[in-house]
């Protein structure tokens, strides 16, 4: 069969394998930065979840924190009330977030882009206020502390340097990422891209578009919930900001920075954003957002498709140069 007839296959590429080995090496190379590294992975997973929804299915959202926050609070509340086993807590958080995503999807998936932006934003604001009011459970503005997360597998305690937390986070993020990768390479994943490209044409080839969107929104909700639960369990704290608007907005920025629609964009964008934030805020704690803003404007205007777009163009140019040489 000629090259023109092959479809992108699901085999792991060398660059992907190198990427994951590098995330493992972080443990040895940056032992004093494991807390930040865990945050990057968790936020990266959260961004991968948005990528499924936005980058693949084309659903814009400014309220993805609704599911992240749900997961964080569920894990937090469980751990405070005697259910401190981390893995089952993670599972419960994923289920709860999936349920929130499923129920709200019937509102969030209506209408066009602007409607969706506003409805998703509205839903996350509702949940934020609800969490604020339910202080008995959530700790309100003070946040939810005194969580009792038990040792992982009953053996590995979550230490103060974040070593267990990092390895635990890395393992969970990698497994969930593999699941997302599977989704993307499946017929379902192709149908999501079809919906992103043209919902009208999808309906005209017999696709129940709305149903597919509900499914991916729910799946992504579970992923976001797991990310939220990871944050709660590894930091032993849940603040209201897990449901905050800026969490959803920053997430969108990260995904655009990394490039939507190739799964790694979320991870790369989160790393870039959080590391830049950490470095810039150390340089100048007051004005770091200025530089962040500049970075965003430059990436969006100059490197269409984010880091991925830039890399693709550079490698295409190199390839061309090599062929001409």
């Amino acid at each position, binding site marked *: 069969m000629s090259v023109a*007839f092959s*479809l992108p296959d699901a085999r792991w590429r060398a660059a992907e394998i190198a990427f994951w080995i590098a995330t493992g090496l972080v443990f040895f190379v940056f032992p004093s930065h494991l807390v930040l590294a865990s945050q990057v992975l968790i936020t990266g997973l959260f961004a991968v979840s948005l990528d499924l929804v936005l980058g693949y299915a084309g659903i814009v959202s400014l309220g993805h924190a609704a599911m992240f926050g749900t997961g964080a609070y569920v894990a937090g509340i469980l751990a405070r009330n005697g259910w401190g086993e981390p893995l089952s807590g993670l599972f419960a958080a994923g289920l709860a977030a999936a349920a929130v995503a499923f129920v709200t999807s019937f509102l969030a998936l209506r209408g066009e882009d602007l409607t969706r932006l506003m409805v998703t934003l509205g839903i996350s604001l509702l949940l934020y206020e609800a969490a604020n009011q339910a202080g008995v459970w959530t700790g309100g503005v003070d946040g939810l502390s005194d969580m009792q997360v038990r040792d992982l597998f009953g053996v590995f305690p979550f230490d103060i340097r974040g070593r267990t937390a990092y390895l635990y986070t890395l393992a969970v993020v990698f497994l969930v990422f593999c699941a997302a990768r*599977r989704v993307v390479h499946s017929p*379902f994943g192709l*149908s999501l*891209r079809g919906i992103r*490209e043209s919902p009208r044409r999808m309906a*005209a080839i017999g696709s129940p578009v709305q149903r597919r969107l509900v499914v991916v929104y729910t799946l992504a909700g579970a992923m976001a919930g797991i990310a939220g639960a990871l944050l709660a369990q590894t930091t032993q704290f849940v603040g209201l900001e897990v449901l905050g608007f800026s969490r959803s907005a920053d997430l969108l920025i990260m995904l655009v920075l990394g490039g939507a629609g190739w799964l790694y964009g979320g991870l790369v964008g989160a790393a870039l954003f959080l590391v830049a934030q950490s470095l810039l805020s150390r340089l100048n704690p007051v004005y770091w957002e200025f530089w962040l803003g500049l970075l965003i404007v430059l990436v969006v205007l100059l490197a269409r498709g984010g880091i991925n777009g830039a890399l693709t163009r550079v490698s295409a140019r190199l390839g061309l140069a090599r062929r001409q040489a």
Partner: protein
Amino acid sequence: MTAALRTQGLSRSFGALKAVREVSFTLEPGARHALIGPNGAGKTTFVNLLTGALPPSSGAVYLGADEITGLAQHERVKRGMTRTFQITTLFPGLTVLESVVLAIFERKGIAASLQTRVANRTAEIHEAIHIIRELRLERDAGSVTRSLPYGKQRLVEIAVALATRPRILLLDEPAAGIPAAESGEVFGVIAALPREVSVLFIEHDMDLVFRFAERITVLAQGSILAEGTPQEIGADPRVREVYLGDEAARG
């Protein structure tokens, strides 16, 4: 014999405008039926009512013996009725092969599957390649749709529609915007379809209409003005009036 597709008093208004009024229409099994009429006659609106893209203001649509007036668009496709678009409506960012494979997945009910991988579905890929070859698009199979010239995109419209294996094919100006030399090629593909497929096509070019249609319905201002064989329609003074203006009809 039951009609392949039938409408009863089908109407659709946009505000005060009656775009389609009281259309009772029959598409026979195996038909090569043309729907013609001046710009704004309501042809595309009529197709949108047939496919369920628009709900009718009143009237009913029957597929075979079943009423399908309230059926969702994708369910009508599942029952064997597929359309193409006057204004090219494809998956701009997917390759031609991906687009056709996707339509096959939908037809086979595996498009929601998480169990398998697209690249491993050799049976569907082979079928897609077969369709792509029939439309002589094999050299473009790996190209992203938006990068193709317009004429090729019109062929992709048909390839994607054929991948659903329709029993009824509704073609809204399939050759719209293609140079006359190539439009014959598009209709050649349509003419070569097996007789199990009933075809309704909208077309402005009268040469093509008279060459490929065995029956013609003329729509004007939303209503059926005339219907008959190409000879009957060609000789109908009312049709000539609509198309050529009063003077030509009188002269």
